[in-house]
């Protein structure tokens, strides 16, 4: 062994000689300073190698050399079995720094600081150099040197950092079952290790175990930052012990362990926060839904209005919209005629105060008929024709009328068609009674015609209504008035109906003197003198739907007006709200021209409204 060592020395020196000439000094150094190379027992503290167990008496040797911060270091020795342990100064420590080419290469210096109580030699920072080899030896008083080359080291190789400080733990999370949990362990680097400066680079190792077990679980701290570590899978109810140590990076020597910290988590009450949150959310949603539904139900009308604005339906004020529907003409006419016990509320000006397009012609109204409920059409007609007492007598007529009038249920206008020839006879009887009728407050008595409407040829200043030529005209004060009123009412009713139907169109009769009416006179209209003519005028002229003779109950001074125009343009309304019509051609109103050539076939159209194309047809 010795020879081998020597050989190694020789080899190394020769190598050095070959490698670098400055190392020739090394060779000399080696040869002179190490006369006996024998492995000393138990001195391999640098490498943690203890395979050499001393059996012989132990000589003084160094037990350990440790640096805590790579700035200073200390070495501890023991006198062994020699010497007196109680004698502190018996042994002295000498060290040597082996630096190539150093002028002090052979110099052994004494320990800079002794701690005899601990048998420690402390090298402060002024005497410490890193990356240089230190060799230590012990010398006794009698100059016996105990030296072992194993006791040479470089400082960075003997660094064992202090344990980390401020070890603490926090619970990271808990498993859903509540039986295991994770923990984060945190600490701080040892204050002696100058980590911040960068002089030392430290890595840590965390170890933990259950209280009663003997095996430690080790965790190398790999992740950055390196001052915390997560321990997974700890069990509830058990106590764990955790401690930590550290070492220099890329070195192998760990420092001491820190103080242990105990982790314990008692049983966790299974308050499932997740389900609690879910419950809260669900309740909130349900409450919100209930609230919304309550709002919807309580305000549904408003909501309906907002969401589904009502479509304006056909409507007449005071008339139930049900009546405007198909098939209910009787009731409608009844109401429109002011039927019922209410009189004619529809036609009161107050009723229509807010509707500007409705204009009233004020007429003394003696409501002719209040009792007629059977036949709305008939009552209206009777009002125009003669009033209620004639209803019975003209039952057949009126019935026939009403029957006929009811045939066409579709348009109201169709019901206004002139009477048919078959009613002629029935209505004739009315004629005979014409003159005998006292004027009834309900209106004219004898009516000749079977028609529902008659044209108003002229309106008298006193309120009388001049009807179409060729008919008997009754001029009765109340009659014309009633006629007029009823006619007006009727007209108004028509107009109102039509206007209701056509919104804002104010349509009076657009009267135009046609070829026939041109022959008639309006103001002052001469009457047709002949009752026969008037009777004849009853004859329906289908082509002239609007020339139905309309007889007003006249006073005895029944005058037959000259034929008047079928249509007259309404010029204006005077102050009394009477309609002023255009005077027709006087020349044209010479003869009671009964002959009326049929007009061009006019389509059925509502009285009072003339479409432009028909207007052209009407014009002469």
């Amino acid at each position, binding site marked *: *062994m010795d020879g*081998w*060592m020597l050989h*190694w020395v020789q*080899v*190394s020196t*020769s*190598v*050095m000689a*070959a*490698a*670098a*000439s*400055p*190392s020739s*000094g*090394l060779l000399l150094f080696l040869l002179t300073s190490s006369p006996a190379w024998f*492995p000393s027992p138990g001195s*391999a503290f*640098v*490498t943690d*190698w203890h395979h050499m167990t001393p059996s012989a008496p132990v000589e003084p040797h160094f037990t350990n050399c440790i640096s805590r911060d*790579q*700035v200073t270091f200390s070495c501890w020795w023991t006198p062994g079995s020699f010497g007196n342990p109680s004698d502190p100064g018996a042994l002295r420590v000498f060290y040597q720094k*082996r*630096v*190539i*080419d150093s002028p002090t290469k052979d110099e052994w210096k004494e320990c800079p600081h002794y701690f005899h109580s601990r048998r420690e030699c402390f090298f402060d*920072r*002024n005497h*410490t*150099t*890193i*990356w*240089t*080899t230190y060799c230590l030896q012990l010398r006794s008083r009698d100059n016996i040197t105990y030296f072992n*080359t*194993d006791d*040479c*080291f*470089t400082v*960075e*190789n003997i660094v064992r950092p202090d344990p980390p400080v401020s070890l603490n733990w926090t619970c990271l999370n808990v498993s859903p079952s509540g039986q295991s949990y994770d923990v984060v362990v945190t600490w701080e680097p040892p204050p002696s290790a*100058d980590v*911040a*400066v*960068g*002089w030392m*680079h430290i890595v840590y190792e965390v170890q933990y175990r259950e209280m009663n077990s003997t095996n430690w679980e080790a965790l190398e701290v790999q992740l950055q930052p390196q001052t915390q570590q997560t321990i997974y899978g700890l069990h509830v109810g058990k106590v764990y012990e955790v401690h930590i140590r550290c070492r220099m*990076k*890329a*070195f192998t020597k760990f420092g001491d362990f820190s103080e242990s910290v105990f982790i314990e988590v008692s049983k966790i009450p299974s308050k499932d926060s997740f389900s609690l949150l879910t419950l809260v959310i669900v309740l909130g949603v349900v409450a919100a839904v209930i609230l919304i539904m309550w709002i919807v139900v309580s305000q549904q009308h408003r909501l309906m209005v907002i969401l589904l604005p009502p479509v304006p339906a056909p409507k007449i004020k005071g008339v139930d919209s049900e009546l405007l529907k198909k098939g209910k003409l009787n009731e409608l006419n009844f109401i429109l005629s002011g039927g019922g016990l209410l009189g004619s509320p529809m036609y009161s000006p107050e009723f229509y105060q807010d509707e500007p397009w409705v204009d009233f012609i004020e007429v003394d109204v003696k409501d002719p008929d209040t009792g007629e409920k059977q036949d709305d059409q008939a009552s209206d007609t009777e009002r125009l024709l003669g009033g209620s007492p004639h209803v019975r007598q003209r039952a057949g007529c009126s019935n026939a009328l009403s029957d006929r009038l009811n045939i066409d249920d579709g348009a109201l206008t169709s019901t206004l068609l002139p009477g048919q020839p078959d009613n002629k006879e029935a209505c004739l009887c009315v004629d005979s009674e014409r003159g005998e009728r006292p004027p009834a407050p309900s209106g004219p008595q004898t009516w000749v015609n079977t028609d529902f409407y008659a044209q108003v040829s002229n309106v008298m200043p006193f309120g009388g209504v001049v009807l179409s030529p060729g008919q008997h005209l009754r001029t009765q004060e109340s009659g014309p008035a009633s006629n007029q009123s009823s006619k007006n009412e009727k007209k108004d009713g028509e107009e109102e109906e039509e206007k209701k139907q056509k919104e804002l169109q104010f349509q009076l009769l657009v009267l135009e003197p046609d070829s026939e009416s041109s022959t008639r006179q309006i103001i002052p209209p001469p009457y047709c003198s002949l009752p026969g003519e008037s009777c004849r005028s009853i004859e329906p002229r289908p082509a002239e739907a609007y020339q139905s003779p309309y007889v007003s109950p006249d006073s005895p001074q029944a005058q037959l007006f000259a034929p008047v125009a079928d249509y007259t343009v309404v010029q204006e309304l005077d102050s009394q709200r009477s309609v002023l019509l255009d005077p027709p051609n006087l020349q044209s109103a010479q003869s009671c021209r009964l002959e009326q050539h049929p007009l061009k076939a006019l389509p059925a159209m509502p009285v009072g409204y003339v479409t432009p194309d028909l207007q052209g047809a009407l014009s002469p």
Partner: protein
Amino acid sequence: MIAIQGALWAVLSWPCLLSTSFLLECTDQDQVIHPYCLSISQEKLLDRAIQHAELIYRVSEESCSMFEEIFVPYQLQLQRNQAAYACLTKAIPIPNSIGEVQQMSDKWLLHSVLMLVQSWIEPLVYLQTTLDRYDGTPEMLLNKTKWVSDKLISLEHGVIVLIKKMLNEGLLTTSYSEQGLFQYDMQTDMVESVMRDYILISCFKKDSHKIATFLKLLKCRQTDNYNCA
């Protein structure tokens, strides 16, 4: 004689350090400048250099252990601390304690680092050739040494760029054999060769640790000059 040799060595190696004629940073084999190197910030550059140095140290330590395990007899392993002082000396004084480091300026520190790095490039190349020659050299050891050799070169580049950034000096990379002293004889004995390599590796391990520490100290100085060494 030794002093004269040292002085000659210093004279020979100094001009390269102080030359500003060329501004070659991050050069590859063809001495082409990589403009990317200049765009990296100083902090990042320093961090990368530190990472390099630490990695180099770790790998060198592993290589040393591996080599020791395979080639060096067990009895001789205890002597490796002895071999520490057989390492090559350097031209300029390199601090060995924290006290000395505190007295050094940034400039000196950087230059020390550069010196160390540059001094080990060629020996590592030599080490690879010798390792190849041995029988039974594990592949891993060869790879490690190769890796270390490459990383050292890139570390050198990085340090040159750092010097350029921090000190505004331009430097040449080692394209020549500055040492000239590291002659090796291929005819030497196996044992001698092994021993030589062993010493080499140990010394390199020590120096790489030194490089890493210096760079970390430099970083501390850059960030917080008050508390640093």
